[in-house]
């Protein structure tokens, strides 16, 4: 642009700053759903289901929460109801009366105000107002002239407009006619063709007035016809009237005229509409008239009236108003059918991750009998391209060192001295980790031990710490193992926490939960520690243990050390299966374990609780957590308490029965004895007194204990092996003895709770015959006391029974059996109580006895001989009593089963006189034995047959 051009323009105002296009704040256009219509009060005007609805509720119309309330009418004799006149305003809102409402209120000229200029001197009002204090016309009225016409009208008038004329420029006649036509057509469209078309009256005017212009016609407002009937909109019902009556409208729809009673009737309007329950017509807006209905049966008459035919022909065109039928038809589109699939077509869908990739290698879907075989996890992974098997190898962090920063902080803060020591521990621990082999670790630890002993005086505490170090070393090994096992990782995101959790798992396994504190970083507060501990406990509950005992019972963990001899078990099972195949049912296929019925069960079955004073049968199930080699390390050094505990564990393990372990077993047993020394006061006193005695005595004692112990635990240690071991054991024993003495002295001071397992204690107490225990057991059933006695001698009653007869003591037999046994060893028992030394001898004797018995039983394994022995003596009187008591109900077996619980049921026995032993025996043999014999014969014959078969086969 040139400057000259600039000068040509005149600019007004201040020019806007040029828009910086980069920084234009781009406003997002408001979406429709964000736009709301608000009323004057800022309330949402429209709401409802589709936001377009006008809800007439509290917010919009009525103004109360309850909505519109109908008016009450109440009238009584005393208080007559006033006549209420309702005004439209009562039903209106404020908005309605506002400026733009339905009925706007404002100052307007009313009828009272009369333009004085127009009406002249008519002043009725003013006359009426004479009562006012100031007579005469009000001054205000004189001053203010009411305005009747609006400003617009006044303006129009001034411009030359007259009422009755239209607004607009003046038109010639032709133009005016054209406009008029147009208007009329529009009116026709709006009102239908009901209104008669009035022809323009001034049609015949000439062209003389071409120059004359006229004002345009006033626009006739569209006037609605008020609805005064109850028909649907657009429907007019039948109107029956005589033809001549009323106004004949030529342009209305043709009427149907009928002759009725010599009168011509014309029927107007529509007869039928579309009812609510009828199906829609094709076109409900179609205008129908009577002419389209048939009123007679038979062949249709073509023409009724001139009109009707005309209309029908018009309707035939089937053309909407305003449309014209086309002259030439459109060409029909040709529809091509889809191609037919070949018969052998098989639809195959190849899966693609995206269309840019080649289709995923088709996983063969094996189908079997039409059913789709399930995909394996690997297949699915292939489809999903999941990398499930490419798990990240778990990084092992055996060192439990907190972050450097936290270390520094804790060091600087130096909250507790204890923490410092822990710090040191950890460092040492780290060093221990660095050592590769087990031996190196050991040396490192011993080195540490010396160091700490030198630095601090509290030796006990040091020992404890060392203990912990060892734990660390062992547990870390375990931990690494566990890591390979890929245990649960609930805190995967927090690696430190996860590490602690794993460590905690190890601790829990060892039963040292409180060690968690030692591995938690020092930066943690007390509350945090506690919180984390609780968290871990819950996590363990969630992950580690199966949620309920059903599941727990179903599965055995593979890492369970007690199940390590899987192969042995499987071989045993194979043996059993073989036995079943050979039909060798009996001892091979049978196994029996102790089982303890709940006391309530016994009560309900009316049976005394078995094995009240004895050890719990659960003992067998307990499994050792350490191998024997673990415990070996602790034997010589360190801590009495701990070692003894582990040995306890070891001793409970039933798996240890090998001869190779025997030496170690002896060791452990001696320790147990030491342990019991500390536990049981009397015995410890004894040992203290015997402490000055010779080694031989001690060794003898030990052997004695060993024998008794092995008896209790059912370990058959031959005497010879013991003898060979005895020399060695005595040596170690004496050493251990002295050491343990020292330990006891040291631990007595601290004297924490040392009692380990209660069952153990009970067992040993029963062995050592503490008087209180025995009195307890004697208060119980005689059988139980017998059982206890048998334990004292060194035999579990079940074991005794095993030696003779695998069958359980059947009622009476049990008692007889034990009686005889007690008779044999009664003197022994009595002696047993007096001195311990004599007891040794006795137990050895008794053992010899049992061995001889075993020999006997081995030599003739048949039960009959034993039975014959047992049936010999006549029963004690009390037993006979119970026998006679029960004999009667047994005859009527079904009626009173209550008493049957005392004796084995013998329904076939008719024993009214059954009080004598011999008869009973006879009866016993009559049925069962006979049967048995029969079967045995049969079986043997079978075996014979089998052997024959085998021979034949061979």
């Amino acid at each position: 642009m040139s400057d000259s051009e600039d000068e040509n323009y005149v600019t007004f105002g201040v020019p806007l700053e040029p828009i910086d296009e980069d920084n234009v704040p781009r406003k997002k256009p408001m979406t429709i759903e964000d736009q709301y219509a608000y009323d004057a009060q800022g309330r949402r005007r429209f709401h409802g289901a589709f936001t377009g609805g006008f809800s007439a509720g509290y917010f919009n119309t009525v103004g109360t929460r309850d909505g519109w309330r109908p008016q009450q009418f109440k009238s009584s004799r005393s208080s007559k109801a006033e006549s209420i006149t309702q005004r439209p305003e009562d039903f209106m809102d404020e908005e309605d009366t506002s400026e733009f409402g339905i009925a706007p209120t404002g100052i307007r000229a009313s009828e009272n105000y009369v333009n004085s200029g127009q009406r002249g001197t008519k002043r009725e009002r003013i006359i009426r107002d004479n009562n006012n204090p100031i007579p005469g016309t009000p001054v205000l009225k004189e001053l203010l002239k009411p305005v009747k016409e609006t400003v617009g009208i006044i303006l129009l008038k001034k411009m030359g407009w007259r009422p009755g004329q239209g607004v607009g420029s003046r038109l010639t006649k032709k133009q005016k006619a054209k406009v008029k036509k147009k208007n009329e057509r529009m009116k026709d469209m709006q009102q239908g063709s009901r209104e008669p078309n009035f022809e323009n009256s001034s049609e015949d005017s000439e062209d003389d007035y071409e120059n004359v212009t006229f004002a345009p016609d006033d626009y006739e407002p569209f006037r609605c016809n008020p609805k005064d009937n109850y028909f649907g909109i657009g429907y007019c019902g039948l109107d029956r009237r005589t033809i001549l009556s009323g106004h004949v409208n030529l342009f209305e729809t043709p009427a149907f005229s009928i002759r009725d009673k010599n009168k011509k009737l014309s029927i107007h309007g529509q007869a039928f509409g579309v009812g609510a329950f009828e199906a829609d017509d094709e076109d409900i807006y179609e205008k129908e008239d009577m002419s389209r209905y048939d009123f007679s049966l038979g062949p249709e008459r073509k023409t009724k009236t001139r009109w009707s035919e005309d209309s029908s022909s018009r309707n035939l065109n089937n053309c909407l108003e305003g449309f014209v039928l086309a002259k030439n038809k459109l060409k029909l589109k040709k529809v091509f059918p889809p191609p037919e699939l070949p018969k052998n077509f098989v639809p195959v869908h190849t899966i693609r991750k995206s269309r840019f990739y080649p289709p995923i290698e088709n996983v063969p879907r094996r189908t079997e009998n039409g059913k789709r075989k399930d995909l394996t996890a690997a297949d699915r992974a292939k489809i999903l391209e999941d990398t499930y098997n490419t798990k990240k190898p778990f990084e092992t962090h055996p060192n439990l060192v907190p972050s450097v920063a936290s270390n520094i902080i804790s060091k600087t803060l130096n909250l507790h001295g204890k923490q410092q020591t822990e710090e040191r521990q950890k460092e040492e621990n780290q060093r221990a980790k660095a050592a590769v082999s087990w031996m190196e670790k050991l040396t490192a630890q011993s080195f540490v031990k010396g160091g700490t002993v030198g630095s601090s005086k509290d030796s006990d505490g040091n020992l404890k710490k060392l203990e912990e170090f060892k734990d660390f070393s062992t547990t870390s090994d375990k931990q690494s193992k566990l890591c390979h096992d890929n245990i649960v990782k609930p805190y995967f995101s927090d690696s430190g926490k996860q590490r602690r959790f794993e460590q905690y798992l190890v601790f829990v396994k060892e039963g040292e939960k409180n060690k968690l504190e030692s591995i938690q970083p020092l930066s943690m507060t007390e509350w945090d520690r506690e919180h984390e501990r609780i968290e871990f406990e819950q996590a363990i509950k969630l992950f580690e243990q199966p949620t309920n005992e059903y599941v727990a019972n179903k599965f055995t963990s593979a890492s369970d050390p007690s199940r390590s001899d899987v192969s042995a078990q499987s071989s045993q099972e194979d043996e059993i299966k073989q036995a079943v195949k050979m039909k060798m049912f009996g001892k091979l296929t049978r196994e029996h374990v102790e089982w303890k019925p709940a006391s309530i069960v016994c009560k309900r079955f009316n049976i005394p609780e078995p094995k009240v004073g004895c050890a719990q049968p659960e003992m067998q199930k307990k499994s050792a957590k350490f191998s024997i080699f673990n415990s070996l390390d602790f034997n010589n050094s360190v801590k009495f308490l701990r070692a003894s505990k582990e040995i306890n564990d070891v001793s409970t393990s039933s798996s240890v029965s090998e001869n190779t372990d025997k030496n170690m077993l002896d060791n452990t047993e001696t320790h147990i004895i030491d342990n019991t020394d500390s536990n049981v006061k009397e015995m410890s006193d004894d040992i203290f007194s015997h402490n000055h005695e010779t080694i031989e005595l001690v060794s003898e004692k030990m052997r004695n204990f060993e024998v008794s112990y092995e008896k209790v635990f059912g370990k058959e240690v031959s005497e010879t092996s013991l003898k060979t071991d005895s020399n060695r054991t005595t040596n170690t024993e004496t050493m251990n003895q002295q050491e343990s003495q020292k330990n006891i002295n040291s631990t007595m001071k601290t004297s924490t709770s040392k009692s380990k397992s209660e069952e153990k204690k009970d067992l040993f107490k029963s062995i050592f015959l503490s008087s209180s225990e025995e009195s307890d057991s004697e208060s119980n059933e005689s059988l139980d006391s017998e059982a206890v006695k048998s334990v004292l001698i060194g035999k579990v009653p079940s074991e005794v029974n095993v030696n003779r007869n695998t069958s359980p003591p059947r009622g009476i037999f049990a008692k007889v059996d034990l009686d005889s046994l007690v008779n044999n060893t009664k003197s022994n028992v009595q002696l047993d109580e007096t001195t311990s030394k004599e007891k040794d001898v006795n137990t050895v004797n008794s053992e010899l006895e049992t061995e001889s018995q075993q020999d006997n039983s081995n030599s003739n394994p048949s039960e009959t001989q034993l039975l014959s022995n047992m049936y010999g003596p006549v029963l004690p009187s009390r037993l006979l009593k119970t026998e006679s008591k029960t004999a009667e109900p047994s005859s009527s077996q079904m009626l009173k089963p209550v008493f049957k619980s005392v004796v084995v049921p013998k329904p076939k026995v008719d024993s009214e006189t059954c009080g004598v032993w011999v008869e009973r025996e006879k009866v016993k043999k009559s049925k069962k034995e006979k049967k048995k014999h029969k079967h045995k014969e049969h079986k043997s014959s079978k075996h014979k047959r089998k052997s024959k078969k085998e021979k034949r086969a061979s």
Partner: protein
Amino acid sequence: MEIDYKLVREIECKQAAVRAVRFSVDGAYCLTCGADRKLKLWNPYRGVCLKVYGGHGDEVMDASASCDSSQIVSCGLDKSVILWDVATGTPVRRLRGHAGPVNTVRFNEESSMVVSGSRDNLVMLWDVKSKALEPVQCLNDAKDSVSSVRVSDHEILTASFDGKIRRYDIRVGELYTDYMGDVVTCASFTRDGQCVVVSCADGVVRLMDKDSGELLGEFTGHMANDLCLESSVDTQDTRIISGSADGKLWIWDLVSQKVVAKLSGFKPTKHPTVSVSVHPQTNCFLATNGPNVLMWSTASGQE
């Protein structure tokens, strides 16, 4: 000593498949457990249904009547054990301890305890004298579904699909486990309490000595077809009775191990005979066959 068993009655129970039929303790009535979740009390001699007990959520599998016939205990696939009042027909207690369908249930002889065996491998002991809804003891030795439970005065005999029968001797406090080589579908005491009749899925009914666990006899010939067949002995301990897949009731002589009779109904059926119950005093057998219950009895009193 030929005994002819004659078919006394054939009752159509109208409760879909009858899963089990049980005599009451006195033998006057019988219970049928239906697949339509109903338990019915019958007078089998007249063939009259006395009462219907509805309340199980699924098929009723087994039932047992108390010794005074005032209560019934039933169990079903809905994992619950229900104790019923006979007269009113209302459930007195609903015991929901099992985690799986309950296969079998028994009262003890005094009817103070209920022993139930379930597919969740557990045998639960319920004290029905108390109001406790928890089992007083769980016997969790079985490694597979428990198929049958029998209670004598001091023993609990359980059979399991793990091929073992377990005898819990309450008096001695020991558990005797006998391995049978195949799935055990039913194990029951003989009347004298000295032997155990064991039905195995390999189509053999075995008579075992209770005390030694030795095999006393084998009874074969019937068809097992993987059905959970029940077996029993007759009242005199002279016959072994077992159901069969061919819809007949097989009866063997206990000593000779020969088939004595194969009892069938009036008309041939396609349904197997699964459940068997023997009258406590007389030689009267009840057996289920599909929707029907058949009853046989001996005309001549033997021995």
